């Protein structure tokens, strides 16, 4: 069943001004109205001193417990370096067939890799990652189609190579 809405919530230092720019793209791909707002949690509580990163699993559970409501889907947006115990970093993660996901812009910026800042590229990457995590909440798994947004990405270059749209098979599975 299609959710009645998708809500993007920005936390901490994530640039809130980007939200109005990206909602239309996400609504167009998913076919679901997209809302946005600002949320407040102490992100510092999720900092892991040994790894000098933020615990993605705990943050996701926090969003699930206190911010995901009703039948809608929620994506929480951060600007911190996320990790999960087995991986050195993640761009984001979500509950498969669940109500929420998280995405961080921290590793999506060119500056992080010593390149010239490019807001357009950053916004495109962010949109793709948000749609990718939303796809998981719609029950979609990683897709082998090289241009499908559900293609797994381990480097930013991988994100650049795929499109922001679902392939035919994923559209069918997710009922978009």
């Amino acid at each position, binding site marked *: 069943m299609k959710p009645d809405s998708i809500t993007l919530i920005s936390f901490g230092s994530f640039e809130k001004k980007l939200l109005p720019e990206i909602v239309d793209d996400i609504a167009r791909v998913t076919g679901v109205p997209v809302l946005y707002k600002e949320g407040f949690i102490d992100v510092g509580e999720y900092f892991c001193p040994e*790894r000098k990163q933020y615990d993605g*699993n705990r943050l996701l559970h926090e969003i699930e417990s206190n911010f995901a409501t009703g039948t809608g889907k929620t994506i929480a947006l951060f600007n911190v370096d996320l*990790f*999960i*115990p*087995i*991986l*050195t*970093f*993640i761009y984001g*993660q979500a509950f*498969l067939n669940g109500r929420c996901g998280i995405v961080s812009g921290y590793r999506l910026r060119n500056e992080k890799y010593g390149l010239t800042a490019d807001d357009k590229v950053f916004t495109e990457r962010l949109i793709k990652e948000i749609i990718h995590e939303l796809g*998981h909440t719609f029950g979609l*798994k*990683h897709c082998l189609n090289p241009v499908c947004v559900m293609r*797994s990405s*381990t*480097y930013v270059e991988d994100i650049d190579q795929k499109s922001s749209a679902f392939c035919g098979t994923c559209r069918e599975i997710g009922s978009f």
Partner: protein
Amino acid sequence: MTKKISILVVDDESSVRDSLYNWFIEDGFEVACAEDAKTALQMLESEEFDIILSDIKMPGMDGLEMLKRIKNLKKDAIVIMMTAFATVETAVQALKEGAFDYVTKPFDPDDLTHLIRNASRQVSLMDENEKLKEKVISLENVEDLIGESEGMQKVLREIANVAQSSASVIINGESGTGKELVARAIHANSARRFFPLVSVHCGALSESLLESELFGHEKGAFTGAIYSRKGRFEMADNGTIFLDEIATISPKMQVELLRVLETRSFMRVGGNKEIKSDFRVICATNRDLKAMVDNGTFREDLYYRLNVVQINVPPLRERTGDIPLLAEYFIKKYCTSMNRPLMTIEPAAIRRLEEFPFPGNIRELENMIERAIVVGNGKRITLKDLPIEKTGVSYNVESLDDVEKQHISFILNKYNWNISSAAKALKVDRVTLYNKIRKYSLKQA
């Protein structure tokens, strides 16, 4: 549809299990988790997993001990060990114990993807390999033994019964009945099928040559032994040794063979090191070994050692009902090998074949069909293509030896006593043919 790869994650930390579970589920794998080695081993007893990803440091049984036990359960299991405390020693130990790979936590996402991709490729290759092996074996089985007659069905049932054991087998049957094919079928259906089937034609070799063939020799053991050489018993390790024409071996070789069968160990000719080999013995003979035991030409103890199971392959004249099937099979075989369109055979020709007593059994039928294809019109084998009327063997002979003598004499005359051509036609080697000529005192007219 491609089978989904299944992964078992073994780690005492729930956050690690959950993270890996989510990661793999998102990648479309089937995933199960176990919180300790004991639970994992219990799960492995009832379920099959393609890849096992396990932590090394766990309370209770650690990952390395679990790896050993998994390898005991399933030799080719793909186990990837992971740890947060990497040392060269544990990595080396894990790989020595048979781990597929060794990784340190946390992984780079790209490393994890590559690791699982490599392991999945290995799973697919192993699957493919297994299927190809089965296919090859089934092809061998289907192609080799043909016959719907009761006599042949009995042989097939006996092969199926005996194949799974390691018992010694004696295959009895006239020359040309397909004893070697029966031996191949037993080997191909046994647990030893992935190891060699080594054939030795005892009748073709002199005593000293046979000894060197069977046991191997060391460099300088005798004149001409320039290199050391493995013997057939050594080559057949874990597999099967097929001793054809066992009745022809000398009394000395009978003693040697008995000793090897009892101890499964031997020394190379000229060597002083004992070599052990685990092989199964299948023998074949066209003589009555029991009668040879009774008249003292074959050792009784060796006979009983070899004769755990006896399979009697019926001569073709006792299963004439199989002739149409066999003829059809050989027509297909030779038309294919000669790159000719598939021929048919007229009913009258089949009837003539069914009436013929075939002293040379299936080998003779095969030669007859091959000849008919060569001389025939290329579409249909007719009566005139069969050499039966002109060359029919006169059957006022009684013993097999008489039949053999008559047939060899016929072939020798046919090829103007050219030994190489005659041996080729008889499908024996030249030494055997010379031995037979001597045995039957055959002389050129």
